[in-house]
């Protein structure tokens, strides 16, 4: 426990620059959106207090906005506003709207009618009544709404990191994907503290009596503006290129840390989710992104992979892994599966992924057409000499491979096939294999090394730059520990990669990460 605390503090100290800038971004995001929400919500609340027939629809609409899950709302924003602070602020503003509109409405309609009547009777105009009577008397209720909105915003702002708007979510979600508790806490604790502190400060203003409340009401917009401006402070970067990396990539040695250590790459980096990263690169919001080298979107958005000339990304060569039991039971299996080896390069796999993920062609069709093009396809023999059980993880590339294997087995042997596709992640697939639920599935060398064998860092460092040695290492270890055989690699390497728009890479004459580094660091 003590050790945990110690290392959390160490982490925070080490990352204090980042922690500060993320906290400032977080506060900034919260208050920019809050300010805008007040600027929109307050007049709307006043409007519906005047025209009550509008109140149902306005409050209803604001209520519906609030029921949209935050991630989905951020998702809706991207096609409209791209990535970065703009969509994040709009999304936060939409969340903050309901409490502000509702409380303004409740506050104003709740002002004692006889007081309003007195104001009218003394000859005050509508505007004077609003300014001098209704708003001041509704202020405690309105402030309560602003308080609710602030706390909501501090919470939702953690999700801003999904769309490259920064904030403490970078630590939180980076920590979650890296399974790094200190990193999660370094983001979560300040976020929780911010919520508590702002809630408390606003409760003080809310409880002020009339004598002081006027001061508070004047001070509030000023303070809010000040806090809102925090967002713009950390944005002093050099260079013209912008990189967008996933939270996971940010914290990995075989990711951003390696880029800095081994390449010395210094580039303005924002954190963004995998779901929107490729599109953002295509739309020139980002110049360099972290991705997977066989991702279909590479082709869809015309991106190129930069050569990892210093080998910081471990090889992820794909090969079928088969239990020894199955190899004995199906003597023809190994030969049949190896028919695919060496046939699929990175660019072919990217193309195939593009056809399933982007053109939405079925994995069967893509698999069949590929085998036909290589003259490997044969119609099914409908043999009855036993059933081979094929597994696959839950993404497109694995579906395609599983289909190819199924077609090869049916066409070249007398075995039949049952496919258990969509077995979630690595752990589920691998457990299914060791527990004899399936006979084989396609696995990647890097995953075998890091996720399954959980190799020591020294081992990883030693092996990483060499795909042969990595393959030999996992093959030997799997055989020894699990009685599982790695067959010959299929050919492609689905590893982490840096990528750029093809056109920009050509213009800048950047083909490798080193060249990218030379380019950014001299700029």
């Amino acid at each position, binding site marked *: 426990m003590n050790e945990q605390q110690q290392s959390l503090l160490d982490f925070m100290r080490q990352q204090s620059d980042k922690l500060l800038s993320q906290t400032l971004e977080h506060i900034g995001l919260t208050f920019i959106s809050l300010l805008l929400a007040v600027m929109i919500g307050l007049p709307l609340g006043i409007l519906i207090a005047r025209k009550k027939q509008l109140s149902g629809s306005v409050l209803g609409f604001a209520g519906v906005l609030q029921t949209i899950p935050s991630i989905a709302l951020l998702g809706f924003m991207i096609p409209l506003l791209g990535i970065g602070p703009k969509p994040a602020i709009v999304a936060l503003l939409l969340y903050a709207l309901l409490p502000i509109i509702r409380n303004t409405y409740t506050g104003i309609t709740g002002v004692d009618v006889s*007081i309003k009547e007195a104001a009218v*009777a*003394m000859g005050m*105009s509508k505007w004077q009544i609003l300014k001098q009577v209704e708003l001041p008397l509704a202020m405690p209720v309105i402030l309560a709404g602003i308080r609710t909105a602030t706390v909501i915003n501090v919470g939702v702002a953690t999700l801003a990191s999904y769309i490259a708007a920064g904030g403490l979510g970078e630590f939180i979600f980076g920590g979650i994907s890296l399974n790094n508790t200190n990193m999660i806490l370094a983001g979560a604790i300040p976020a929780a503290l911010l919520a508590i502190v702002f809630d408390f400060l606003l409760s003080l203003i809310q409880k002020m009596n009339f004598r002081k409340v006027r001061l508070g009401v004047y001070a509030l917009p000023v303070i809010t503006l000040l806090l809102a401006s925090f967002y713009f402070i950390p944005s002093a970067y050099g260079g013209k290129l912008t990189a967008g990396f996933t939270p996971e990539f940010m914290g990995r040695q075989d990711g951003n840390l390696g880029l800095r250590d081994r390449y010395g790459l210094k580039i303005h980096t924002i954190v963004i989710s995998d779901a929107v990263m490729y599109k953002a690169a295509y739309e020139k919001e980002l110049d360099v992104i972290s991705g997977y080298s066989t991702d279909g979107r590479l082709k869809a958005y015309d991106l190129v992979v930069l050569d990892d000339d210093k080998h910081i990304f471990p090889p992820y060569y794909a090969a079928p892994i088969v239990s020894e039991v199955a190899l004995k039971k199906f003597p023809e299996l190994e030969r049949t599966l190896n028919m695919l080896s060496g046939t699929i390069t990175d660019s072919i796999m990217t193309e195939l992924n593009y056809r399933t993920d982007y053109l939405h062609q079925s994995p069967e069709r893509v698999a069949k057409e590929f085998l036909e093009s290589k003259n490997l396809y044969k119609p099914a023999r409908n043999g009855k000499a036993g059933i081979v059980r094929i597994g696959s993880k839950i993404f497109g590339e694995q579906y395609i491979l599983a289909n190819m294997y199924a077609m090869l087995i049916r066409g070249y042997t007398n075995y039949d096939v049952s496919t258990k596709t969509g077995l979630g992640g690595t752990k589920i697939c691998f457990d299914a294999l060791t527990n004899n639920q399936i006979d084989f599935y396609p696995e990647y060398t890097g995953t075998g090394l890091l996720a399954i064998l959980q190799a020591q860092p020294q081992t990883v460092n030693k092996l990483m730059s060499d795909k042969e040695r990595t393959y030999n290492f996992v093959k030997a270890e799997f055989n020894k520990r699990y009685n599982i055989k790695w067959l010959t690699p299929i050919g492609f390497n689905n590893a982490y990669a840096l990528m750029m728009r093809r056109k920009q890479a050509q213009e800048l004459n950047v083909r490798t990460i080193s060249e990218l580094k030379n380019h950014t660091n001299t700029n």
Partner: protein
Amino acid sequence: MIKADNLSKHFGAIKAVDKVSFEVTEGETMVLLGTSGCGKTTTLKMLNRLIEPTSGTISINGRDVASRQPEELRRGIGYVLQNNGLFPHYTVAQNIAVVPNLLKWDRAKTQKRTTELMEKLHLSVQYLNAYPNELSGGQQQRVGLARALVADAPVLLMDEPFGALDNVTRTKIHAEFKALDELKRKTIIMVTHDVQEAFALGDRIVIMDKGRIVQQGTPQELLFTPANDFVKDFLKEQHLQLELRSVKLTDIWPGLTDTGRKTHTDLLSADENMWTALEGFKFTQHDNINIINQHTREIKSVGFEALMSAYYQYKKQPHHE
């Protein structure tokens, strides 16, 4: 000064006010009297256009109020609400300064006028920076009155101004109210459901029922020549006291015989009514009271029997005008 002609206000099917006409002359205090829901407040609010009439006209100083800009009209009419309607977020001074600020008075003038009014209304200046919720009901009522009087508007509308006060406070405030010089030159329309209050304060009384005027006239006229059984029944309970209140000592002056024995120096104005004179006997324990007729500067010293016999003599006369 104020003239309502065939004034009606309908809320859907409810005829809250139904063809009401009356006239109030300058400096007069007119009371709208009737049970709850008879349309008094609605009538009053039409005068400063808080409510627009369904039909009929109102003119103040010969000008149709409908032709005037409402805010400007209202700034020229003092208005006292039943539950005072003070702004809870304003201090006493700020509450009183609302209309002066609307009229863009300078600060010094407002301040001077506020202090003057506080004094006249027996409010300590230490309350100037207090908030309404720090005051008693009676004090709040006075602040409400001060707010309505501050700009010295010639017309004052009051909706059950003393309704929230207990009986003792109310009687005390009635006396102060009548003595207030600020009010002497104002044209006042006051709403109440309290018969005693109406008789205590009204120069003329308009009795309303179900949105219509049942009878209007001076207190004496209503008491001694009620238009119908409704009026008679309405006034019945407090009839004796009202009668005594409605008769001024000047009315019975000719019938009063002076005993010529002045045993003390207390003087009672002949503008006071019979009720006050009788109370004088009760509270002072003297067996005679000295009444001074302001107009003739004559003083008569009378005993209880002499007073009562002059009163009965007066009542036997056929006309009380």
